[in-house]
């Protein structure tokens, strides 16, 4: 097990280095000289020279990367050009909002995806199975921002049941917070429910054909217990680890969902930063999401190896 963890860490480190190089490289795509942009209209050569020196623009690219990397490793992702706040502060401020949205979305996705997948597998070939695959296709083909707009049209504009926007902190008023979060969480959870349903269905089908399931049935265990205790418990292992990898979909989806429902989270942060040409913030957000994804991926792999010893030997 330790060898397995060590081997996985050995592949993570170069991946992280590449990620940081890619993100650092993004700013090279920008046209023009950042020092000249920052120097304002006067374009005073002394100011430009000073800016070039403080931003290390006079150094070659690899050296600039190392300067940048040193900052990153010390928790310094630069400063927002617009609000003059450290990027880390901005991220720490917005992250909890998105995390709440993501958690609610995952709960909804699990609540829809797993039962639907189990039913589809158990009643394979039936109308239930067919219905579940139609649901999965629908979930995967609906742009989530459009679904959000349609839900606002139905529940906010027509019925007037839920607010179309207006985020309230859960510590302020939990009821209003949930009222504002339920639609976006459903929009975000919907697509992931479709993926989870597909995974659950195939994992269940695989488990249900195993001999121990036949044995359990043969010794007279009720069908309900066979499905829930014998089959689902084993099928859940790949489902959970695969589910962890939906993190990327979740964050990508959050960007659009937050935009539709005007939720002041991580996604809104990156979109606003893009339009304000606040590149340090864009870089910071991408770096944080990528790192989180790699760490989560690693945790999922370790968890998978922990419960399934055969993986460790590969």
């Amino acid at each position, binding site marked *: 097990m330790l060898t397995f963890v060590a081997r996985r860490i050995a592949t993570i480190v170069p991946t992280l280095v590449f990620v940081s190089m890619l993100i650092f490289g993004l700013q090279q795509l920008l046209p023009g000289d950042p020092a000249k942009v920052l120097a304002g209209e006067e374009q005073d050569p002394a100011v430009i020279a000073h800016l070039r020196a403080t931003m290390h623009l006079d150094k070659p690219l690899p050296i600039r990367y190392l300067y940048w990397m040193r900052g990153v490793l010390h928790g310094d992702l630069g400063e927002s050009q617009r609000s003059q706040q450290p990027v880390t502060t901005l991220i720490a401020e917005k992250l909890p909002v998105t995390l709440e949205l993501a958690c609610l979305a995952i709960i909804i996705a699990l609540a829809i995806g797993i039962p639907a997948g189990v039913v589809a597998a158990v009643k394979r070939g039936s109308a239930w199975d067919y219905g579940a695959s139609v649901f999965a296709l629908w979930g*995967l083909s609906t742009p989530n921002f459009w679904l959000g707009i349609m839900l606002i*049209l139905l529940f906010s504009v027509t019925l007037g049941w839920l607010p179309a926007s207006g985020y309230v902190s859960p510590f302020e008023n939990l009821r209003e917070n949930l009222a504002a979060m339920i639609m976006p969480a459903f929009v975000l959870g919907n697509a992931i429910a*479709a993926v989870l349903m597909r*995974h659950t269905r195939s994992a269940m089908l695989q488990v249900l054909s195993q001999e121990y399931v036949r044995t359990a049935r043969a010794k007279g265990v009720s069908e309900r217990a066979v499905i829930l205790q014998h089959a689902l418990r084993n099928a859940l292992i790949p489902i959970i680890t695969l589910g962890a990898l939906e993190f*990327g979909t979740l964050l*990508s989806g959050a*960007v*659009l969902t937050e935009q539709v429902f005007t939720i002041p989270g991580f996604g809104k942060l990156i979109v606003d930063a893009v339009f304000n040409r606040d590149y340090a913030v*864009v870089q910071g957000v991408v770096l944080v999401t*990528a790192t989180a994804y790699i760490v989560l991926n690693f945790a999922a792999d370790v968890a998978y190896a922990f419960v399934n010893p055969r993986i460790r030997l590969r």
Partner: protein
Amino acid sequence: MTGAAADRLVAETGVPGLAGVPAPVALTGRTHWLKRLLRRPAAVVALVVIAGFVVTAVFAPWIAPQDPLAASFSEVRKPPSAAHWFGTDEIGRDIASRVVFGARASLLAGVVSVLISLAIGVPAGLLAGYAGGAIDMLLSRLTDALLACPFLILAIALSAFLGPSLTNAMIAIGISATPAFVRLARGTTLAVKAEDFVLAARAIGNAPWRIALRHVLPNIVPPLLVQATLAIAAAVIAEASLSFLGLGQQPPQPSWGSMLNTAKDYLDNAPWMALWPGLSIFLLVLSFNLVGDGLRDALDPREA
């Protein structure tokens, strides 16, 4: 590639329905798989829908009832009528005409960005899988790094740095979708490389590049075809998403995503503005997903 690895690929790339990508099948199966595909009603209907969108996009100037850019201030936000089937938008433009012209941006982005992914991803994957060693190591880590950035967030970041335009959005989507193709091409190349006929080709003294191009490449085409079809679906959604955020097709040129972005502000008094562009995206994406699913089943040797 094992089933679990394929599943992981879906999860990591966010490209739906990749689970169970078929093992490479022999080239001789070509007529068979096309026939098998056409035996699936859902796939046939989807192909017809896609063909309909292609015709609409190509002949847009003849099909659109009006000029998609012509504003009319006496016709602002009018509900659907005989004169304007889908109604008019916030400055009195005909929505039906804009939806028709919007098909161009969506299809173009879907196809061009996947071509970009294929052009970079397939040679890289083939090289990594066939050459192995340090090259494989380097390319695989690079792919891991790209895969670690969520698809849409990477596309947003890239189009932010490149500048907002439809062309840059296509480049951004293409690059963001590339790692999935590198992985798939590499994985299938590794599987094909172990086959006896490759060994035989090597034994009679073929050059490595010749074996890679003449013997391995044709055999990794089927799974790539499935992946490419599903990737078009993902790219259409991605283009709509970027345009929705204002990073794709720039106004006043019509795009379904940017039409939805405007529509969002008029839900109270012009809900029809939000209906048609969204429905078009849904229909087009659903069709590509259905064709992709159908192709996967038709190319699966176990189904033969």
